[in-house]
């Protein structure tokens, strides 16, 4: 079915995809303010879905040794260490030979570590260690850490405490899912719950979904050749069960339920956090008017999205698809006209 907002704008995806009596749209609300970084979600997901492991690797990215969402990690817990004002408390690590947390230096090193996830492109290192240092320096970049002993640096009087940002990332199950729209085999499909799932018996590994995703979620298993990602436990939710990650989460940082309810709950939660002085709390992916029509899995964050590895303002690529076909049509006509002139022009 093709509706007015089929490519862009607010939409209930399941009826648009052709389910006349679709159940309520289901999703995740991940409240990162109460995530304790236990990675039970990662483990439960792997256990339930039979996702392959890739051995033990140490990435030097705080406690994150997963690196990114890949075909072999459908939940990914991000860890960010940042200095924050110590207030009246005595500063953390004060008087110790190591001085305050060396988060920026550690982060810059962590930015360089590569890992073989068994997938492509997997968790690539990036070219910007300075950007990693800026992330770990807190809301304001403090400059690149030096190589001298921290205890001998000037400015040690103003040492900070540190905070840990932890967030369990997952496929967003977008209202307008680019991966699904560009899939040439129909392997990716919209479920009656409004989620997006790959049919592994159909996928032929063309790889088109991978650069189409504005969040960098979907990925290809190297040996297997096919694309894999979170299914929002389609097999479980169809039977009325909670997805494995939400079931395993010990703090209810990951909440599963009808999206409408989750959005209400999230709005209340962010209001309460703001009122209690946590001014950095904000929702991400909750707005049906955003570039992807709102996410089926959305988040409460305590810093800018890019610090968590999320794009600050993602837009589904198919928003511009009608315009792209139009431009291609004009170019095609120009091409035909050029050939006609070359053969039948006056001088010919």
């Amino acid at each position, binding site marked *: 079915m093709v509706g007015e907002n089929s490519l862009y704008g607010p939409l209930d995806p399941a009826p648009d995809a052709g389910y006349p009596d679709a159940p309520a749209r289901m999703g995740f609300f991940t409240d990162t303010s109460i995530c304790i970084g236990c990675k039970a979600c990662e483990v439960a997901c792997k256990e339930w879905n039979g996702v392959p492991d890739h051995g033990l690797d140490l990435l030097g990215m705080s406690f*994150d040794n997963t*690196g990114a969402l890949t075909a072999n990690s459908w939940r990914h817990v991000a860890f*960010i260490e940042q200095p*924050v004002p*110590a207030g009246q408390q005595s500063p953390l690590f004060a008087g110790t030979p190591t001085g305050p947390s060396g988060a920026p230096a550690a982060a810059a090193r962590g*930015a*360089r570590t590569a890992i073989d996830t068994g997938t492509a492109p997997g968790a690539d290192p*990036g070219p*910007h*260690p*300075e*950007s*990693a240092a*800026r*992330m770990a*320096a*807190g809301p304001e*970049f*403090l*400059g*690149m850490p*030096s*190589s*001298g002993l*921290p205890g001998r640096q000037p*400015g040690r*009087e103003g040492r900070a405490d540190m905070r840990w940002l932890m967030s369990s990332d997952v496929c967003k199950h977008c209202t307008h899912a*680019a991966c699904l*729209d*560009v899939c*040439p085999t*129909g392997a990716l499909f919209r479920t009656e719950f409004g989620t997006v799932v790959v049919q592994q018996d159909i*996928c*032929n590994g063309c*790889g*088109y979904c*991978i*650069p189409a995703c504005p969040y*960098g979620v979907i990925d290809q298993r190297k040996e*297997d050749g096919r694309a894999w990602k979170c299914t929002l436990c389609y097999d479980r939710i169809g039977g009325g069960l909670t997805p494995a990650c939400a079931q395993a989460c010990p703090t209810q940082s990951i909440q599963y339920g009808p999206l409408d309810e989750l959005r209400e709950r999230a709005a209340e939660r*962010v209001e309460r956090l703001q009122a209690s002085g946590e001014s950095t709390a*904000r*929702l*991400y992916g909750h707005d049906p008017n955003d570039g992807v029509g709102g996410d089926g899995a959305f988040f409460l*964050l305590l810093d800018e999205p*890019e*610090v968590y*590895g999320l*794009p*600050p*303002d993602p837009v589904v*690529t198919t928003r511009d*698809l009608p315009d792209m076909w139009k*431009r291609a049509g004009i*170019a095609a006509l120009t*091409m035909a006209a*050029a050939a006609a002139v*070359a053969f*039948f022009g006056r001088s*010919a």
Partner: protein
Amino acid sequence: MTAGEHSAGDGRAAGREPAGGEPAGGEPVGRESAAEPPVGARFREHQARRGRGSGAGRGGGQPAVPDAEFRSYYGRPILKAPVWRNDIPAYLFSGGLAAGSSMLAAGADLTGRPAMRRAARLASAAAIGASTFFLIHDLGRPKRFHHMLRVAKPTSPMSMGTWILALFGPASALAAVAETAPMLPQRGVFGPARRVLPVAGTAAGYVAAAMAPALATYTAVLIADTAVPSWHEAYPQLPFVFAGSALASASGVGLLAAPLTQSGPARRLAVVGAAMEVAASHRIETGMGLLSEPYTRGRSGRLLRAARRLSVAGAAGAVLGRRSRLVSAVSGAALIAAAALTRFGIFEGGVASAKDPKYTVVPQRQRLERSTAMSPSPPDGDVTESAGR
């Protein structure tokens, strides 16, 4: 769009002031271990500029697109870069060559240029055969190629392309097979084939030529319809690059294979095609601000610069060398090479833009800042609104 004014360390929006840490402008990092690649070489440059200028990221005398300050998760890419191997740029090139050649063949057929027709038909069939091979070879599961034929989806340029290929391929092949008619014996079982083939070949050639513009330009939509920043942003120009490039490479076939008496239209096509390709590429390489940068740097930059030189030289040679068989042939080869280099250059530039979080974060931040600046919400209340999207 310039990245100059951007400062990602937005203390105001984040609402927290760090109390301590090392002061800015400390010793650049040249860590002890020699095995490690130099951390922050680009940052040192940035620090040097910062020292001279008055504030972060400001100050005159900087390059057109200064390094933008932005934050990211351990400097890692946000997007997943395409997993496509060299098969795909090779496919973009051979598809364009096949399309242009079948148009050249149809034109030659209509205007009575048999040598050019023969060469162009054979080139078209060979190129589309190569295309099909590249396309299947790049799949993670090549044996499941036929799954592409389960659906026809206008939202998937690859699906549309599969169907274009499925119609164009047999037509182009039949037109090429028709060129063998004169070699068949006049009598016996091949007798009727010898008489029917030329007619069938002409009809098939026209079918292929009619599909050709779609074949040459849909590939631009294919790569633009992704989250890859420098591909997506280039979507208005990309079809013109690919169309021009397809015409230029086909004219190269004409110049290489046809005698001087028949290659007039190929010369004109060379000029028009190369002009289209160079002009549209130029707009991509210069008109997209920060997102043009990947096309001017590294491998992509080298490939595209070489492509431009070869295109211009090939077009000039096509015009000036119209009395020399040798100059014509060399010009033709240059045009074909230019078309291949263009496709690889555009491909590499896009991949580079996906691998670097700068090209994802900075333009999106700028877009957010613009929309926040335009929105009438009160200045106090916009913290969560702007950041929550």
